[in-house]
């Protein structure tokens, strides 16, 4: 690991950098508060240690200080709440998902991920649909819409490099989306304890250029049709 003190995985989705930047904003705010409080604590411990002949100040508090730190904390959390809302809805609220792009069905079951592709016609439930196990092939630069289902227990669809996580719950169909900004191979993991094989419920995300992806879909559809003909 290059930077063991900040081991963020590579960031390869469109909303990933916005999430990371909010992470660093919070890191700055909490970092400053942390240093302030701990320095003050240590300073007081040293300065006000018991010494011969000195008596503690007899004070029961200070209303003005109470008002100041209450208001200041409130202002900070208000700002944080405000700064977080738009990004949260951009990632999670289906009404705000971008239009168009690739649609996939992902079904989780103990202990594997099944990804269904609509094939060349772009529609599910037709003959050219095909399925991949523990492999999520997607094109770069295109929104990918996923409908998540689970067959048995709750699993959690986790793409660390895309800063995306969404539980898959039996009996529910949960929409999620992301868009890759880079080609390459990335991690798909399960983040919710799902049984004794939870630790190996792992898949790969393979991001290709849009042309390569089209070729790949064609190939897969042909394989599928050939299989069907046999």
């Amino acid at each position: 690991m290059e930077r063991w003190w900040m081991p963020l995985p590579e960031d390869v989705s469109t909303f990933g950098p916005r999430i990371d930047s909010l992470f660093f904003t919070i890191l700055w705010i909490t970092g400053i508060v942390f240093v302030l409080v701990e320095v003050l604590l240590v300073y007081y411990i040293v300065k006000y240690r018991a010494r011969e002949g000195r008596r503690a100040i007899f004070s029961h508090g200070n209303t003005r200080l109470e008002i100041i730190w209450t208001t200041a904390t409130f202002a900070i959390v208000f700002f944080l709440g405000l700064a977080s809302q738009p990004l949260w809805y951009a990632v999670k609220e289906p009404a705000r998902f971008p239009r168009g792009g690739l649609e996939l069905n992902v079904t989780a079951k103990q202990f594997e991920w099944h990804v269904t592709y609509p094939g060349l016609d772009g529609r599910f439930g037709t003959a050219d649909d095909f399925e991949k196990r523990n492999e999520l092939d997607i094109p770069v630069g295109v929104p990918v819409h996923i409908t998540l289902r689970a067959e048995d227990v709750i699993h959690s669809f986790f793409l660390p490099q895309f800063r995306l996580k969404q539980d898959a719950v039996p009996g529910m169909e949960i929409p999620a989306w992301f868009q890759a900004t880079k080609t390459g191979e990335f991690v798909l993991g399960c983040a919710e304890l799902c049984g004794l094989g939870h630790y190996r419920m792992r898949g790969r995300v393979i991001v290709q250029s849009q042309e390569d992806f089209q070729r790949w879909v064609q190939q897969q559809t042909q394989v599928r049709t050939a299989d069907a003909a046999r």
Partner: protein
Amino acid sequence: MSTIALPHEAQAHALHHDDRSFVRKYIFSTDHKIIGIQFLFMSLFFLLVGGLLAMTMRWQLGWPGRPIPGGAILGDAKAPGGVMLPEFYNALVTMHGTFMIFFAIMPLLVGVFANYLIPLQIGAPDMAFPRLNMASFWTAVPAGLMMLASFLVAGGSAGAGWTSYAPLSAVPEYSGVHTGQQLWCLSLIILGFSSLMGAVNYITTVINMRAPGMTWFRLPLPVWALFITAILILLAIPILTGALILLYFDQTIGTTFFLPANGGQPLLWQHMFWFFGHPEVYILILPAMGFVSEILANGARKPIFGYPAMVGAMIAIAFLGWIVWGHHMFMSGMNPVLGGYFMVSTLVIAVPSAIKTFNWLGTLWGGSIRFHVPMLNALAFVSMFVIGGLSGMFVAATPVDIPLHDTYFVVAHIHYVLFGGSLFGIFAAITYWFPKMFGRMMNETLGKIHFFLTFIFFNLTFFPMHLLGIAGMMRRLYDPTQYPHLQPVQPMNEFVSVNAFLLGATQLIFVFNFLWSLFKGRKAETNPWHANTLEWAAPSPPPHGNFEVTPIVYRGPYEYSSPDSPVDYLPQDRPPLERPSPAPTLAPAGN
């Protein structure tokens, strides 16, 4: 107020007729102090069990697939050849959380100190319902034994996490655990009755049995904290019990409350569990806040800074605890609009938490600080609680929670709150009230060695977990090296494991100090810390019935360094001194 407190004569009578048999006195005792001490031994035992489970887990995480030293005794069903199986790892994860939360931290904070402290600090001879109190302890014991025994049944103990999400927890075919999962439900249902019996007792006692003059705003902060906690327990535990009964039905008689078939809902379990679970988080921290406030004031020789703000903040935390449960479910598929709401309510908790922190700092300001062992642990509480609180901001902000949810970042966060916070608070409280409980002092030097080593190894164990979470390491993961993105951080897992073992080994110092001091410690005086609260007016240890005469309270609990007193403390029950009347003001000043 305090009309129920026994008249002096009746109480003195009780004191002089302590001819109970050994069994009535020490085993089936109705004395709140003995019950508190019984809870102490029980929960310290489970604390050790929970710690051992954690260290076993850390072995696997540090060196996946390597045989555990001495692991052969676990048997082939758990660890063939000493190498643990994933199902045993899941059992460890589940039982570590369950034992620590329900059988160690919660009874240490509430079972021990609500029982021991409330009557003593409010000046009462005992609890309002002593027999109910005894029943509370003797209900907790079988619950704990049942949980412990579940390791021995076929299929092993529960393995669906301490949160036991359905359907995994509801269907044996999914988890591979049959009886263990049911015993988990039954044990917690039984324990729930113990908690409820305790809670009604604490609430009634605080309301009805305060000594004359002990007004609400003269209550020591531990009593306030435990009173608020008892209300949370009374309201939260029935929800857990209800959920557990439904889950038990799903497991045994074929209902589908939490299964998608026939209209059931897996998310319903999460809503019920966390509607209990978040108040539970505050049940696990509020009492520690109370103890720490008490000890900081004592160590700093100053009144607590902002007493009304401290009480208000605790009430605010308790109230907010009811409207934030959804923040455990941001990724659950719950409507994102709800997520937006729960983020705001969660962030607001930072306000009362900050009020408490700043007031603790205010208490230290201008003090004359004594660094006795309880004080050191209380100071550690403040500094570690700050980290636990601040790391909570990351996971409260929903967008940042997306990558961090269910990773080691969360594990780090809860351990900074529950170990860095609650457990340091518990160490502070045990070392502070040990002389009152057992009439002997604990060894200061051993206490300091234990404190410093614990502080160091605690941070070396849990701080890197933040980084592991940032790197994307999921919770409850049997073998992190399975994932390519986690292979580079494996050295950090080894580092954490080594420090976890050292942290565990350090606790032996505490065990030794505790047991040694029990028999060989220096005899404690009545008021060794020069404190103000009423328990220090009773002998160490206090007899059955506590006070020879019901104390009368003249002032608040934290009048340290008051100009009214020649020494730097002023007990609550000391009658006001006759002060010379002020000089006549008629004489012109300066003449």
